[in-house]
Structure formats: structure tokens, C-alpha cells
């Protein structure tokens, strides 16, 4: 098992390095001059050239890349062009707020999706209903759902704050939005796995041993659902931590997504690169965690990896 983990870590590092290189290249392909973004009113080429020199933008791209990588190896993500602050100090607190939202969103989608999937499997009458709910949630764009929730619970009933920010009260609606958007996937996976499991020979064995339905469900069926659900949670946590941009924009949740969008707008390359790296590391990390967790839940994944 340790060997499998180390192998995955190495592959993960390679993936992160690839993402960094790609993001760096893309930054320079995107048209626009950061110097102009910093000093939009400065007309004199001398001033702009001065700014470029200050940011080391006048050096060859390959040298800039080497510089950046050198900094990275020392744990230095660089300094923001616009905010004149280290990227790490900008990303740090926002990583925490996005982390809180990502975690709450995943919890919400697991609860909502799991409940829908179990409902659809166990009760015939619920199957069509859950199918319709799933389809609706899949079809609705995330910002429409977010605005809808904000309108209904924020403005109409006034039970949720509409001001934005990162407090516990402000967390509810964005987490619910993420939960509802993600729920159909979990509902589908849970329902599929449960149906497979219920139709299997080992459930017939369990019945032949005189075990009760609820015991069979808890000890024999749900255990077989856990493994694919864990994989999905790992994927989602990684993806959400690289910034749930739309949700953060709609609810003005001060997370990484919001930071990245603003940085893109300002051509603030160090911040954009920083958020990309954080996202890539998060994806690799949570996939690894999910894989390790799965090995505990499903013994078949322990061997032959």
C-alpha cells in the first residue's frame, strides 16, 4: 500500500509541474500588457518600460519561467503586480474560506444526493420523482440556481443574508447551491450501486441467513456504495478547492475563485499562477486521499495496484 501511495505522489508531482508550465505559457499567450493594467493612464512608453523592468517582464520568457520555478522550489509564489503583496499571503486566508465552502458543499451534495439515491432505490413511487428532480438540477445553470436561491431566501423571505462575506450565515446558500448542483451525480451513483448490490447473489445469501432488511441495507448494501462515492468526493473537493468561481461571484464569497477572476482581469500573473498551482495540488492531494480511503473500504483495491 505504501508503494502505491508513493507512486501516486510521484505522478501527482509530475501532473502539478505540467499544469504550472502550461499555465505559465498560457499567461504569455493571452494578449495584454500587465504594465498597462497597472498604470492605465500612463501614456509615456518610458513609464511603461520602467514598470516592465521593475516586474522583470523585459527579460526572455524562458528566464522568467526559470526564475519563477526557482522561487517555487523555495516555497515562494512571487508578489502580486497590483496589490504589492506576497501571493502566498493573499491566497492563504482565501484558501481557508474556499475550503470551508468546498467542504460544506460536498457535505450538502452527499446528503442530498445520497438521500435521493436511497429513496429512488427503495421506493417505487419515488423513482420517477427523483428522476425528474435530477434532470431539473442537471439542466439548471449554476448561477441561475444561485440567484434563484438568493432571490427567494434572501430577498423574498429575508432569512438569508444577501450582503456577501464569509460568515456562517453567509455560508448556507452557496453551500446549498453546490449541494443541489452536485446532488444528481451522487443520486445516480448511489442508486446504481444499490441496485447492483441488491440484485447480487451475496444479498440472496444475506437473506438466506435470516438477516433483517435494515441490517442487510446497513451492513451489506451501503458498504458497497461507499467506494465509488468516496472517489467522487475526492474529485469534488479537489475541483472545488481550485475555486468555485461562479458560486463565489454570485454570493460574493471571498474565496480563491473570486481572487482568481479579479487577478485575470488585472493581468496579475503571479496571483493567477498561484491559484492554478493551489488548485492542481488540491486535485492531486484529494484524489490521493480518496484512493487511500478506498483501500480501507474496499479490500479489492488494496492488491494489484
Amino acid at each position, binding site marked *: 500500500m505504501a508503494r502505491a501511495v508513493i507512486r501516486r505522489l510521484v505522478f501527482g508531482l509530475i501532473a502539478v509541474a505540467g499544469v504550472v508550465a502550461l499555465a505559465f505559457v498560457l499567461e504569455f499567450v493571452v494578449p495584454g500588457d500587465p504594465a498597462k493594467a497597472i498604470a492605465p493612464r500612463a501614456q509615456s512608453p518610458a513609464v511603461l518600460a520602467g514598470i516592465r523592468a521593475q516586474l522583470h517582464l523585459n527579460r526572455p520568457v524562458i528566464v522568467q519561467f526559470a526564475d519563477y520555478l526557482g522561487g517555487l522550489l523555495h516555497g515562494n509564489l512571487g508578489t502580486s503586480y497590483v496589490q504589492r503583496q506576497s501571493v502566498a499571503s493573499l491566497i492563504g486566508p482565501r484558501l481557508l474560506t474556499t475550503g470551508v465552502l468546498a467542504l460544506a458543499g460536498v457535505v450538502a451534495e452527499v446528503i442530498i444526493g445520497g438521500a435521493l439515491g436511497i429513496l429512488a432505490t427503495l421506493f417505487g413511487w419515488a423513482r420517477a420523482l427523483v428522476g425528474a428532480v435530477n434532470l431539473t438540477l442537471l439542466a439548471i445553470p449554476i448561477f441561475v440556481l444561485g440567484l434563484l436561491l438568493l432571490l427567494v431566501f434572501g430577498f423574498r423571505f429575508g432569512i438569508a443574508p444577501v450582503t456577501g462575506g464569509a460568515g456562517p450565515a453567509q455560508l448556507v446558500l452557496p453551500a446549498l447551491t453546490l449541494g443541489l448542483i452536485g446532488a444528481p451525480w451522487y443520486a445516480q451513483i448511489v442508486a446504481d450501486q444499490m441496485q447492483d448490490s441488491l440484485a*447480487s*447473489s*451475496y444479498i*440472496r*445469501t*444475506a*437473506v*438466506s*441467513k*435470516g*438477516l*433483517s432488511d435494515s*441490517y442487510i441495507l446497513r*451492513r*451489506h448494501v451501503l*458498504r*458497497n456504495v461507499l*467506494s465509488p462515492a468516496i472517489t467522487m468526493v475526492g474529485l469534488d473537493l479537489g475541483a472545488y478547492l481550485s475555486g468555485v468561481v461562479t458560486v463565489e461571484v454570485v454570493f460574493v464569497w471571498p474565496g480563491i475563485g473570486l481572487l482568481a477572476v479579479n487577478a485575470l482581469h488585472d493581468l496579475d500573473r503571479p496571483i493567477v499562477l498561484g491559484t492554478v498551482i493551489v488548485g492542481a495540488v488540491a486535485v492531486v492531494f484529494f484524489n490521493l486521499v480518496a484512493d487511500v480511503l478506498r483501500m480501507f*473500504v*474496499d*479490500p*479489492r483495491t488494496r492488491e494489484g495496484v
Partner: protein
Amino acid sequence: MRIAGAGNAPALEISGLNVRYGPVHAVFDACLTVGAGQVVALIGETGSGKSSLALAAAKLLPNSAAVTGQVSIAGREVSGLDAGEFRRIRAGLLGCIAQDAMASLNPVVPVGRQVGEVFAVHAGMGRRQAAEAAVAALAQVEIHNPAAVARLYAHQLSGGMRQRVMIAMAMALSPPLIVADEPTTALDVSTQAEILRLIGELRARVRCGLLWITHDMGVVAELADWAAVMYAGRIVEVGPVERVFDAPAHPYTLGLLQTRRDLRSGPVGAPLFQIPGSPPGPGEDPGGCPFRPRCPRATEVCAEVDPGLEPVGADGGLASGEHRAACHHPAAAPAGPADAPAAAP
């Protein structure tokens, strides 16, 4: 723990059992008795309804199957019980051994716990006690180092070991009846022999009745006291196993035995005997005797009347009705090769 009724009641008594899957009538009016401590082999080819009969007797068919008729286990009428009532007593009444032990064990639960569940739920044992009982049960089925094996998962065991675990589960509460659905079919020949021997020994020790579903006539000869032959959802012949083998009354039984004789002693390279034609497909009912289209003895009456099980040849010290066949023209004397079915008329 034994929930059996009267001590000498038959392990299993089935009468008038019908199984329907929608329009498909899988088992017709089956009557079958497994005496206390006896081994009854239920023989038939795929689709003959033998598994449906066994699963119906064990109340393991899905709700989509319509089952009617009477089933008693160890003198206790169970066909009338609702699912909840039967669930509480079933593990004490009958154990089931399935064909595919790999699929029949939960892949993500250690096998020891799967055996222990039976004790925890039905014998009121605590977690640790049940785990100890499970290890003891695994030792009973001759698994070496049972404590270590108990912690393993199904995919870590060999086919023979998995089937031993299934046997340990089925026999955990020493039930008066075991239903085994082709338990050795998926195993290699030497493992097959070991499992056969093990089941035979355990059965004798626990003194439980055994309903053994198979299409392997060799296993029948070795293990069974009684044989019941199924064709197209009907039991077409039933009797003591020597009797059925030496003097098959039904032409279908005769055909099965003929194929086996060719396999064992026929000249190498010679074509094997085959019963001409093929059985009716699911939902197909040709009317009259279902074997008629393939039968060399068929006459007009066979096309009109579906024969019921009737006693044949009450000679040779057999009690009347012990050997029965569903045929209008049963063979009375021990059959010679001249009587083997030829091409369909």
C-alpha cells in the same frame, strides 16, 4: 439451536408447488419430500425448473415470482408465513449453499464476519462471541488456521475455501434442511471430490436432510438416497436412487442415463448418445406430455393428457408409490439398450 418441529417429520415436504414468472410457468404442481436426514438429488437440465423449485422452497425467489403451494420444513408449515415471521426462524430451519460462492459472499466484508452474523442475529451472541463462534464454524469445515482465514475477504480465498465458508454459514445453526444448488459445479474436479466428501460427512454428523440440485448423474449416484428428475417444470420421475438408475421408468431419465453410460464406458471417439430434439422453451406448452415430441414411446394419449406422477413397478420389495413416474408408458423392467429413445416420430 434447533427450531425443528417433530423429531421425525420430513426435512422438507412440498406439495402442489407452482412457480410463475409472469406468463412463464416455471414449476408445475411439484410434490417432493426430503425425509429427515436423507439426501434427495433434484436432477434436470438448465431451464427445467429445478433451481426455481429449490429457491421457492427456500423462499428466496424475488417478489416478481408468483409462488403457490405448500412447503413444510421439519414439520413446520412455512408457505403461509409472511416474510418477517419466516426471517426470524429461517436460519434455524434451513441453510442454503449456492453454486457461485464468489458472487455469494459479500466482497467487502471479511468472511469471518459473514459467518458470525448468523450467530449474532439468531443466537443472540455479542460481537466477540460471534466472532469466536465463526472461527469454530470455519474449523468445522476443515479450514486450516481458521482465525486467520476469518479476517480475509472472498477474493483472497480459493474456490474450494469459499465454498467451505458457504457451507459453514449454511450449517451454522445445524438446521434440519440444507438446500444446495449445484455447489460443486464451479469447482475443479479434485476440489469437487473434497467438497462432496465434506458435505457428506457434515450432513451425517448434523443429521440434516439435503436437497441437492444438480445435473451431474455421477454425484447423484455417489451421494443421494433419492433422486427426482425434472423436465419442463415437472417432476417426471422420483424414487430411491438405485431404483431410478437401474430401472428408469421415464424415457427422459433413460436418455439421461444413456448419455452418462456412453461417457463412462462408450468407445473413445464414438458419438455420445443425445436425446433427440430440445426441451420446450420458457412459456412454451405443447399440450399433453411435455416430453412427447422427443419421445419414442409417444402415442395418441400422450398428445392429449399431461400424465401425473403414478407409482410404477411395486415389485422388488419396494413399498407401493415409492418409485413414481409421470409417463403413460413407463418402462416396467430394467431397461436394455433396445429401449433407448430413438429419433422423434
